[in-house]
């Protein structure tokens, strides 16, 4: 009750502070003082505090199961464990927007504190642009999705949280992903500020790179957590489905990765200024689009939850305002710097980074078209279609070959003008990769030529990066680690794809199912009771070709609030392969629908994504720059 009021009024106070902040900073902008007025720091901190208070009071309402709050009523239940009561706070639309707002205000405060060495006018403008975004989100929360709506009479119990969201990975997935999404807002605001101040320079590049890295790391880990969750919770045994909701998180990641690379060129050579700004704008726009597409229910995705179209319209309008504003600023203020050479020598580090950017843009357009085309067609012709994974595979996988090749050669080049050094050792590495791949692929049932080439280049990248890992004077370790992680990622995905096998069948208790030389035995079931669900635990014994028996215990859970049945897969993970068994209940209850999968190198996919982000972290904490 009280928490509700406090939360709501702190939000309104936060919005008011936004306007005050704008006024104060405009006044300070014209002030001839060298330093930013202390008031701005205080106001920004105050705004952050109000949003934190509001967020905490929502958490409190969830913990106390205060069902006079509509959000709590819709998404919580007294029988839920405490952990999921808390994570339920951001597991719904209203709460997750409040989290957006929290991160927005947190980041602008951190930006103000961390950017003391930057020009004053630039900092104030960044604050102003960020406040425009913040005001938009405040209005969005307060007008269309107030998390503190009051319910009277107070219902005795809540509707409960969707059980598939009651999961540890998904409890931390949204906050981490949002840190990445919202981090791009700082890049957006500050690049606009830098454009107006004609400050898109080496110094700016060095300073904003930190923010690019932070957003990139969080986005990478956020996407990975979502992917892990989909792997074990949805029971399809895959980790990426090219589903629209997944695609919208991948798109900002692609542009952010492109930005991360070309900001290095900016930092070194003060070139590609317009491109950096355009990428910054695009990245944030795509993050916003992601929120819009997921929240508006426009997408027919397997991940879609019931939602409200009115909210979509609001985000859409806000998005258009931001796009028009940013493009307007870009075209009016951006001056091309003619002092710097804009043409690159064809064989140099900067050209190779440009090539990376071209590939990223290509991947982006494939994903974008695949995601947006169905919506477009629906609007234009009312024809309903969906775009399947083969589309993405066909267009992306072949292009990985040149991409990986450039990735192995690019970092070896020097800035400005370069030659390929150590040609012999490169050629030898390449020959080793091809031979190795050939012997591996020959024993498998796969398209020989295509996979040999593809896996060869992946191995080539792996070997070249491994070699660099052991060079003592390697002064670009973060890059090497990240690229090493990427090569490992591609290799594990490819081998995982080629070597996976699965059995799907309907089976009764006590039955045996034999295939090839293996055998699946459905031993028995047991029933268990928890506070928020009842479960049926099945005991399976699987004998593999070598006669070794593996025991797996998949589960079917019947949640009580709301009444939803979910399957919990049982996965035995080893370094070499995952054994994955999931069971579904079929009407009547006599038959159980099971899916048994052997997925090689699954764990290496997660490990390599972690390596990628570790590369990012190392770069973030690296003090000295190579000369």
């Amino acid at each position, binding site marked *: 009750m009280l928490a509700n009021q406090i939360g709501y009024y702190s939000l309104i106070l936060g919005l008011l502070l936004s306007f005050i902040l704008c006024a104060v900073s405009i006044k300070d902008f014209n002030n001839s003082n060298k330093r930013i007025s202390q008031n701005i720091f205080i106001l920004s901190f105050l705004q952050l505090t109000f949003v934190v208070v509001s967020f905490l009071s929502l958490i409190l309402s969830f913990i106390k199961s205060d069902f006079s709050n509509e959000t709590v009523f819709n998404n919580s239940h007294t029988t839920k464990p405490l952990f999921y009561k808390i994570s339920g706070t951001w597991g719904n639309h209203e709460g997750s927007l409040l989290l957006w707002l929290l991160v927005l205000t947190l980041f602008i405060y951190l930006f103000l504190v961390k950017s003391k060495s930057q020009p004053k006018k630039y900092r104030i403008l960044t604050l102003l642009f960020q406040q425009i975004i913040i005001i938009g989100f405040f209005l969005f929360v307060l007008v269309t999705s107030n998390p503190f709506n009051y319910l009277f009479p107070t219902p005795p119990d809540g509707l409960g949280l969707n059980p598939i969201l009651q999961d540890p990975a998904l409890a931390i997935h949204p906050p981490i992903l949002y840190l990445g999404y919202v981090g791009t807002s700082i890049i957006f605001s500050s690049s606009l500020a830098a454009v107006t101040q004609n400050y898109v320079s080496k110094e700016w590049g060095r300073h904003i790179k930190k923010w690019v890295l932070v957003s990139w790391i969080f986005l990478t880990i956020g996407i990975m957590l979502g992917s892990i969750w989909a792997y074990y919770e949805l029971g399809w045994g895959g980790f990426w489905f090219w589903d629209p909701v997944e695609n919208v998180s991948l798109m900002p990641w692609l542009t952010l990765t492109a930005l991360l690379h070309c900001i290095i060129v900016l930092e070194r050579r003060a070139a590609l200024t317009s491109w950096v700004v355009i990428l910054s704008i695009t990245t944030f726009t795509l993050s916003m689009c992601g929120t819009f597409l997921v929240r508006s229910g426009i997408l*027919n995705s397997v991940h879609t939850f019931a939602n409200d179209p009115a909210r979509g319209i609001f985000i859409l309008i806000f998005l258009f305002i931001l796009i028009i504003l940013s493009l307007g600023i870009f075209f009016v203020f951006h001056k091309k710097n003619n002092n710097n050479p804009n043409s690159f020598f064809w064989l140099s580090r900067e050209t190779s980074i440009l090539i990376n950017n071209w590939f990223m843009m290509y991947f982006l357009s494939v994903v974008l078209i695949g995601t947006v085309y169905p919506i477009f067609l629906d609007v234009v012709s009312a024809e309903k279609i969906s775009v*399947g994974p083969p589309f993405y595979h066909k267009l992306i996988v072949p292009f990985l070959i040149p991409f990986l090749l450039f990735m192995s050669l690019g970092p070896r080049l020097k800035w400005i003008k370069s030659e390929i050094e150590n040609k012999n050792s490169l050629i030898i590495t390449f020959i080793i990769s091809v031979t190795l791949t050939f012997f591996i692929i020959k024993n498998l049932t796969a398209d020989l030529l295509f996979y040999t080439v593809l896996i060869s280049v992946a191995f080539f990248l792996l070997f070249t990066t491994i070699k660099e890992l052991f060079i003592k004077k390697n002064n670009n370790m973060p890059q090497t680690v990240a690229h090493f992680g990427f090569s490992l990622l591609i290799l594990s995905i490819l081998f995982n794809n080629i070597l996976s096998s699965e059995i799907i069948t309907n089976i009764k208790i006590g039955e045996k199912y034999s295939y090839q030389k293996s055998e699946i035995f459905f031993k028995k079931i047991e029933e268990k009771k928890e506070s928020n669900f009842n479960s049926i635990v099945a005991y399976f014994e699987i004998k593999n070709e070598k006669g070794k028996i593996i025991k797996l215990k998949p589960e079917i859970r019947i949640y009580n609030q709301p009444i939803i049945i979910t399957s919990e897969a049982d996965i035995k993970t080893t370094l070499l392969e995952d054994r994955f068994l999931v069971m579904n209940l079929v*009407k009547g209850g006599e038959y159980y629908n099971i899916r048994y999968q052997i997925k090689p190198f699954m764990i290496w996919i997660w490990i390599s994504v972690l390596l990628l982000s570790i590369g990012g972290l190392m770069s973030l904490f690296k003090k000295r720059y190579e000369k």
Partner: protein
Amino acid sequence: MYGKKVKLRFLFLALILASVILTVFLILQSLKDNIVYFKSPSEIKSLIELGKKKIRVGGMVKEQSIFINANEINFIITDFKNEINVVYSGVIPNLFAEGKGVVAEGFLKDKNYFSATKILAKHDENYMPPEVKEAIGDK
């Protein structure tokens, strides 16, 4: 005459243009091959020719129509005007039940017979795919 630099720039521009056109062409071409159309049972009845392409069929699972054995599951999708028999072997989502909305992906054998390769899962029992909602009208 144009200088060497201008010529080079023209060449570069032409190259970019060509690769962009090629990219767009490539993407659109693969899009054409890989889109999956959504049809309701009534739309299937009124089809003039049966394509060989993968489609999606959506509607409600008819009451008392699920029949299961060790290898496959049979059921009927209805939009309350027309219905279609579906045969499927594969993973069955937990929210799949009689009287609930369903989207199945697969191939048409004939106008009354659909062989599904996938049944799409939902995450939320209150959620009805927009297509299905439209297919079954306001029921």
